[in-house]
Every structure is written in structure tokens, then in C-alpha cells.
């Protein structure tokens, strides 16, 4: 167990260090979420207030964009695994006494950490645009935890797909196929109250929606802690399930070589 944690730690350090060497990636990580926030904020301005506490759509939108970002971050994180497979780095770790689970787990942890950092950037930009975190300190913490969990849910899924398909093109197709529908079947952009009935029904089972609602409770309402706790528990369960799925896919990869 101790070895698993140590190895996961080194792998996370490795991935982070590698990402930090890509100036474009850093720019994307920082600028893209801001772009979403400003762009959607303008686009849907007329939609107006959708919450009780403040008149601005931006305050409604910010938690949604934080969720969207964590979701897409997780969804695309499997690309790193494909590049490691292509460069045979995975095989090199497998021929050494590496804790097997660390190879996949570290990717999920890395996606979670990235999501937390992006959430922090988004909240700071939001503050500048007049957003207030009505849940206070507990609200901030909730946003960070939810971001990490949502990213982990889809990082697990994404790595499973990456390990099964092992090709960038297939991975991109799968991420798009799953990504956009899940985004629109959630309350990221519009409140549940404005959704058609069937979408509202589907959204209840969508992890992206759980995260968006948990974050909205923390930022916009500063309340509903009970439902938020339920959403977080659900996210923990699904993150565990997708991580298991990724681990299972990793075993399948090991059997295939």
C-alpha cells in the first residue's frame, strides 16, 4: 500500500512536470476556462438571473463552467496514456517492480489536481466579474472537492477507453461522442427549471449535472448542503467505479502484450 502511494506520487510528479514543459498546454489550461466564462457570460446575458440571490447570469454560470472544465479535463486526460503507450513508457514501467495500479491511478489523480487548479483560476476570474461564493469557506472547499471528483470520474472512463482503443483518433471520437451530449443533458448552462421534462429526467443520472448542482449550491445559493452531500457521495461512488473500469482495461492491455 505504502509502495502504491509512493509510486503514484512519483508518477503524478512526472506527468505534471511533463505538462509544465508544454507552454501551449499551460496557456490552454489557464485561458480556455476564462474564455468559456466570458464568452458564455456574454452569449446568454439576456437569459438573465436564474438564481435567488443575485441578478447576474455570470454568478449562475460560473459553477457550471467550473464543472464543465473539470468534466472536459477528465474526459481528455486519457490522451496522456495513449502517448505513454505509443512511446512504450508503460511497458518500461511494467518490466520494473512498479506498483501496477499506480500507472493508471496517477493519471486519475493528476486529472483531479488539474481540475482543482483550474477551478481556483475560474473562481478568481469570477470574483473579478462580480461573482460571490455564498457558501463561504465551505463553499470554496466544496467546489474544489467536486471538481476533483468529477474530473476523476471521467479520467477513469477516459483511461479505460484509451487502454481499449490505443489510438488517438478513436479516443477523440469517443470523447466527443460522450462529451457534448453529457454537457447539454446537464444544468451547466441553464437551470433545471428551464429544462424540458425528459432532459430533466435524464439529467438526474448525469454525473456532470450532479457536480454542476453541487457547485451551484455552494456558490450561488450557499445552502442545500444535504443534497450537495448526496451528490458528492454519488460522485465518489462513480469515480471509484470508473477507476476500477480503467484498472480492468489496464489488465486487458497487459494480457494483450
Amino acid at each position, binding site marked *: 500500500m505504502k509502495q502504491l502511494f509512493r509510486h503514484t506520487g512519483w508518477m503524478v510528479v*512526472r506527468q505534471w512536470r511533463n505538462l509544465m*514543459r508544454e507552454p501551449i498546454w499551460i496557456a490552454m489550461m489557464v485561458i480556455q476556462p476564462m474564455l468559456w466564462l466570458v464568452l458564455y457570460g456574454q452569449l446568454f446575458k439576456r437569459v438573465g438571473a436564474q438564481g435567488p440571490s443575485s441578478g447576474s447570469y455570470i454568478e449562475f454560470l460560473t459553477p457550471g463552467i467550473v464543472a464543465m472544465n473539470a468534466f472536459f479535463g477528465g474526459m481528455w486526460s486519457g490522451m496522456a496514456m495513449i502517448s505513454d503507450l505509443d512511446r512504450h513508457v508503460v*511497458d*518500461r514501467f*511494467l518490466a*520494473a517492480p512498479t506498483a501496477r495500479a499506480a500507472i493508471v491511478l496517477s493519471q486519475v489523480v493528476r486529472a483531479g489536481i488539474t481540475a482543482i487548479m483550474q477551478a481556483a483560476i475560474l473562481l478568481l476570474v469570477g470574483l473579478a466579474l462580480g461573482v460571490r461564493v455564498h457558501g463561504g469557506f465551505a463553499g470554496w472547499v466544496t467546489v474544489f472537492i467536486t471538481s476533483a471528483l468529477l474530473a476523476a470520474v471521467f479520467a477513469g472512463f477516459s483511461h479505460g477507453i484509451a487502454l481499449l482503443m490505443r489510438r488517438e483518433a478513436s479516443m477523440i471520437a469517443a470523447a466527443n461522442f460522450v462529451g457534448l451530449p453529457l454537457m447539454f443533458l446537464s444544468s451547466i448552462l441553464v437551470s433545471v427549471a428551464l429544462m424540458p421534462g425528459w432532459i430533466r429526467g435524464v439529467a438526474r443520472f448525469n454525473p456532470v449535472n450532479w457536480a454542476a448542482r453541487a457547485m451551484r449550491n455552494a456558490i450561488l445559493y450557499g445552502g442545500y448542503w444535504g443534497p450537495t452531500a448526496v451528490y458528492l457521495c454519488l460522485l465518489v461512488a462513480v469515480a471509484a467505479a470508473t477507476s476500477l473500469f480503467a484498472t480492468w482495461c489496464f489488465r486487458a492491455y497487459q494480457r494483450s502484450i
Partner: protein
Amino acid sequence: MDAIVAEELTKQYKAVQALDGVSFSVREGEVFGLLGPNGAGKSTTVRVLTTLTRPDSGRAFVAGEDVLRHPNRVRGAIGYVAQDSGVDWEATGRENLLLQGRIHGMAGRQLHARVDELLGLVGLDEAANRVARGYSGGMKRRLDIAIGLVHRPRVLFLDEPTTGLDPEARAAMWVEVERLAAAESLTILLTTHYLEEADRLAERVAIVSRGKVVVEGTPDELKRNLQGESVTVELAESNGNVEIATRVIGDIGSEVNVEGQHVRTRVPNGAAAIPRILGALDDAGVPVASVTTARPSLDDVYLHYTGREFASDDTT
């Protein structure tokens, strides 16, 4: 004690029988060559011995540990330099080595000292702090070897260490391997499809063909066991003559084999056979450009034991 023992290993990938009962053993401190064309089963054998792949049947021991029962003990005792580089392109040479050392349980000053030592040994000290993306093919290969050596393994697997290198880099790599074998007192299992490479580096070789070891011994032994010499006839014109020449030469020598306008055969005595071959070709009206004889090479050994030309057996 033997450093590597493979017993009747089999492995099937879908329709392909990659290993069909591979058995051999490597003594401690020896440089051993697994020789064969691509697709013969060399890499699969190495993947079984390095615990990456489980065989369908058979047993294997590396550094005294059972590959199937105690894979993690085997992993701790071996270094593996795969056919395809496992270098992390986005990390520096030093970072690649440090991470590998940590995975093997090394730490602190001891690890850093070992990494410095290896960087010097493979001539990467100056490039150590540069990201590996910018390394040449030869530099990446040397880094791969250093990665395989960080934890002072007892057995080193080199899977096609010079494939994809230009001739100059290949020669340099040979010197490198010879030096490492001496400096680190290692057992080395080397796979290659270059006959000259096995001849040069390996103390003993096993020829692998279609998932089986067809013969095992020192390169000299193998060549000596092959009686006679090879005769190569170069035809002056190719149109239709190759077929006639093959038939005519086949009456005199054995193991006839054609490559372009070159027809090669094996005879007990070259000096006696050449006049007969030339006479027979002249009678058949086939003009000859040149004739050469040679002592048997590993190439001939390969042809003899597999019945196939080495190059033409190279499927991929």
C-alpha cells in the same frame, strides 16, 4: 548456476503461434544471443522472461526466480531494454534515470551518484539535463540502456539494441555493449536479426525460427559443424538463365538458394566444385560473371538449420 532458463515456452496470439516450445539456458556472466528474423519469436521470448507476457505453457527462471510465481522478484533483478525505446520524451535524461531508480527502491545520494555514473558511462553527461525529445536516435538508445542498468541488475535484456541505428551508431553500440558486459559483470541476453551482431557480441547463440530454438552453441561451433564451403555464382544475364542455373548447380551442391542474379550453394570442397559448376553451366549455355567461395558464416548456419534464407524469412 544458470542465469536464465526457459523450458518449453509456448504462446499463441490469436491465429499466430508465436512460441512453439522455446527452450534454452544462459550461464551466469555470459553474453547470449537469440538470433532470428522478425516474427521468429525472439521478442515474445524476451517479454515472457521479463514478466511482461505470461506464456500459455512452459516454465522460466531468471536470476534464480520463477517468472510466473514471483514476477516482482524477477523485475527487481533484471534490466530490460525494449526493442522500442521506453524513454519519456518530455523528461530529461537525468529525470528518466532518477524515476527508474526510485521505482527500484533507490533513493538519496546513492541514487544520484549511480545516475551520474551511468550518464558518464553512456556518454550522456552533457545532455543529461536536456529534455530527451531533442536526443538523436543513438542518444535515446544509450539512455534506454542506462535506464535498464540503474539498479545494477544481474541480468540485462537487450531486445534488438541496434535496430534503427545508422551503421556508425551501430558500431559504437557494439563497443558500448562489450564494455558494459565487462564493467558491470552482467549476464546479457541479446536478441538480434543481424547475424554479424550475434557473431561479434555473443559468446553463445540460439537460432530461433517459427517459435522454436533450432540450434544452440558458440558461433564458431555452429560454423564448424557446418561442413564445407559456400559457393556463390553471379550470372551474367538473368533472362531465364537463373532457373537453368539453379537446376544445374543443384545437381552438384546442396541447399541452393537464389537472390537476384546470385545463385548460392554449399559444397564439401570449393576448389573441387568450382570447375565442375563452371563446366556444367557452360554446357547449359549459361554465361557466368563471377564465382566466389567462402567459409561458412552464421548466415549459412541459419540457412542450414531453417532451410530458409535469412533475409527472405524476414517477414516484417
